[in-house]
C-alpha cells in the first residue's frame, strides 16, 4: 500500500481576528492538527484601538480542502471574517525580502546591475557586501533570489505575503 497524493491549488486567505493572546497559536495549530499546509503566514495589528489583527495565510490544497480550511477558520471564536482572495477575484499580493550578497569585482558589479533591473534598493553596503531590499509578488522575489545565488548570496529574510482586493471595496 502507498500513500496517495492529491493535486493542490494555492490560495491566499485573509483573516480578521481578535488581537488577543493565543489567537495566532489557535489558527496556526488548527492548520497543523488538521494536516493543512501553510506556505506563509503574516500577522499584524491593524486597528486604531489595537483590538483587531489581520492575518494573511498562503495555503495549498485540493478545492474541497480549501473550502474546509475556510470553514474551520470561521469556526474559531476569535476569527471574525475569512476572505479567500484567490476566489474573490482581482487582488494584489506583495512581499518584502532582504537579500545579503557578498562579492568583489565583476560579481559585485553584476549584483548591482541585477538589483537595478529588479528595482531592489541598497539598504546596507560594505566594500565586499550589499543588503538589498526588494518588494513584489512572490514570483519576482523568487527569481531575484535565484539570480543572487549566482553572484554570492549569503542569506535572505522574507516577510511572507500580504494581500488586498483590487478596487474601492474592502474585503
Amino acid at each position: 500500500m502507498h500513500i496517495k497524493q492529491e493535486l493542490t491549488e494555492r490560495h491566499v486567505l485573509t483573516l480578521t481576528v481578535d488581537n488577543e493572546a493565543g489567537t495566532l497559536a489557535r489558527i496556526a495549530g488548527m492548520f497543523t492538527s488538521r494536516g493543512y499546509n501553510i506556505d506563509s503566514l503574516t500577522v499584524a495589528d491593524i486597528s486604531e484601538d489595537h483590538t483587531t489583527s489581520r492575518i494573511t495565510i498562503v495555503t495549498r490544497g485540493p478545492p474541497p480542502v480549501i473550502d474546509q480550511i475556510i470553514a474551520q477558520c470561521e469556526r474559531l471564536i476569535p476569527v471574525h471574517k475569512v476572505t479567500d482572495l484567490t476566489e474573490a477575484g482581482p487582488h494584489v499580493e506583495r512581499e518584502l525580502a532582504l537579500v545579503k550578497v557578498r562579492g568583489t569585482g565583476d560579481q559585485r558589479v553584476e549584483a548591482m546591475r541585477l538589483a537595478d533591473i529588479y528595482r531592489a534598493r541598497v539598504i546596507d553596503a560594505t566594500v565586499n557586501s550589499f543588503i538589498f531590499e526588494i518588494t513584489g509578488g512572490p514570483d519576482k522575489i523568487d527569481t531575484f533570489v535565484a539570480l543572487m545565488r549566482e553572484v554570492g548570496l549569503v542569506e535572505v529574510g522574507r516577510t511572507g505575503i500580504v494581500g488586498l482586493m483590487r478596487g474601492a471595496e474592502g474585503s
Partner: protein
Amino acid sequence: MSEDFIVPEKSGAEILIDTLIEQGVDTVFGYPGGAVLPIYDALFQHKKIRHVLVRHEAGAAHAAEGYARSTGKPGVVLVTSGPGATNAVTGIADAFMDSIPLIVLTGQVATNLIGSDAFQEADTVGITRHCSKHNYLVKDPADLASTVREAFAIATKGRPGPVVIDIPKNVQVATTSTHVKRATSSRFNPAGEADYAEINRAVELLANAKAPILYTGGGIINSGSDASAALRELAELCGAPVTSTLMGLGAYPASGDAWLGMLGMHGTYEANMAMNQCDVMLCLGARFDDRVTGRLDAFSPDSIKIHIDIDRSSINKTVRVDLPIVADVGAAIRQMIEVWKGRKYKAAALDDWWARIKGWRAVDCLSYPGSTQEIMPQYAIERLFAATKDKSPIITTEVGQHQMWAAQHFHFDAPNKWLTSGGLGTMGYGLPAAVGAQMGNPDALVIDIAGEASIQMNIQEMATATQYRLPVKVFILNNEWMGMVRQWQELTYESRFSESYSDSLPDFVALAEAYGWKGIRCSDPAKLDDAIAEMLAYDGPVMFDCRVHKTSNCFPMIPSGAAHTDMILHSDEVSGTMDDEAKALV
C-alpha cells in the same frame, strides 16, 4: 471599547462562584488540589452549589457530560492545575467530538510562575486548545465575570462544546472592585433560522421524492426537545423513513412506524440499504462520519443530498451535498413544516419505496443464534429493555460490542435518554456519565450498559455513587474479552488474538460489595429475568455481572472501507483477512 463596572470588592474565587450561580449552575463535578484551594474555600461558604467529589478528574469530565446530555444544561467541571487538568483532557476531547456543552474550570500556578516549570504547572491552554471549542487563561480577576459569561454562551450556543477557563491561583486570591465588560459584538454569532429560499427548495425536493429518507443525528438532540418533536411532525407529513446515527437515537421514537433503526457500520440492513438506494436524502444535524458512510465513493451514489447543520464546517467535509443549509436544525425543521403546510403539499405516493423497505426488513438483520445454555449478549439487552422500557430509563454505555448491541437492541422513544461516547469512543465513559445523569435526574432509572474491560477504566467512580447515594445500575455484558477488538482480529487478522483477552478479572460481585454496592451475577438464561428484576428492585447502586456467550460477534457490520451494500450479516460470511487498504482504516 469597554465600559467597566464598579462593584463591591471581591476575590477572584468569589466572583467566579457568584457568576456560576448567576448562570444557573447548581452542580459542579470536581476534585480539589493546591491550585484551586481558594475556589474550594469559596465553595465551602456557598451552599447554593452542590459539589460532587469524583475519584478521578476524567470521571469529573464524563460525569459533567452525562449531566449535560441528560438535562440539556451545561456541565461544570472544577479541577486543579497540572495533573488535575491533564486527567480531565480525555473528557474534554470527548465532549468536543460529541458536541456536549461543558465549562471546565482549571486551576493554574500563579501568573508570575507561569512558564517556570513550577510545581504542578502544565500548559493547560496549550494542551486543550485543539480539543475544546474555546479556552481562556484569565490573568486579572476583573476579567473573570465577563469571561465566565462568554464561556457559557460559547459552550451552549451554536454547535455546543467544552470551554476551558484556566485560572491562576493568584487571580483567585486577588480582589477587585471593577469588572471589565467584554465587547461581544460580532465575536460569536451562531446560525439561527435558515434562508427561506433554501427551505422552499428542500421542501420541494422532499415532496417530489420517490424514495426519500431522513438521516438524523445528534444535532437534533442538541437543538432541544422541540427539535425532536418537530422531526416527528415532519416525518409524519412527508411519510419518509427515518434513520439515525448513534448520537441521534431517541430524537425519532424507535416505536414509530417510519423508524428504520440506526445506520452505519453496525446499523440495520434496512437503514443502510435505504440510504444507498434513496433518491433524496435529508441529513438533519448529522455529519457524514466515516462510521456512517462506509466507502465514500459508493455512499448513496444516486441521491440528491440536502444537509442542514449549524456548523458550516460539517457541510461538504467528506461528502459533497447538493443543497447545503447552515442553520439551527430545530428551527429549520419547523420552517420546513411551515412551508409544507403553507403550500399544502401532500405526501407523495411512496408505496413502492416502502415495499422495497419491507423487503429489506424481512432480512431480519438483528436476529442472532439463540441458546438455552448461555446468555447471548443480544438477548441480555432485549430482556433488560423489556424489563425497563416502561420506566423510560437513561442508558449510558462504555465502548465496544456491548455499546453497539445496546444501540441495536435497546430502543429509545425520547431524546436525552441515550448517553454514549460516539466520536471519541472513550472506554470508561459510561459509569461516570451515569453518575452525572443520576445527579441531574434523581428520580430516573440510570443504567450503564458496560463491558468487563471498559468498566475497569473508571471503576473508581463507584465510590462517588456510594457517597452521594446514587442508585445507578451497572449492567456488565461480561464476555471475558475486549470483544470489539477480538472481533476485528477475527475478521481482519485471521484470529490472531493479540492482547485482547480480559485476563485477571476482578470478582465483580465482591468488588460491588467492597464499595457498598449490591452485586448480582447471572449466567443462566432461564434466571436472567429474575436477576434483572432483583437489580431493579434494589434501592441503591447495583453491579450486575452478566456472563454472556464469549465469542459472539456484533452484526450486521460494514467492514471499514466497504460500501453499504457490502454488509456482513452473519459470521459465516466472514473471510478472516483484509487487504492493506482496509487494514489502514480505523
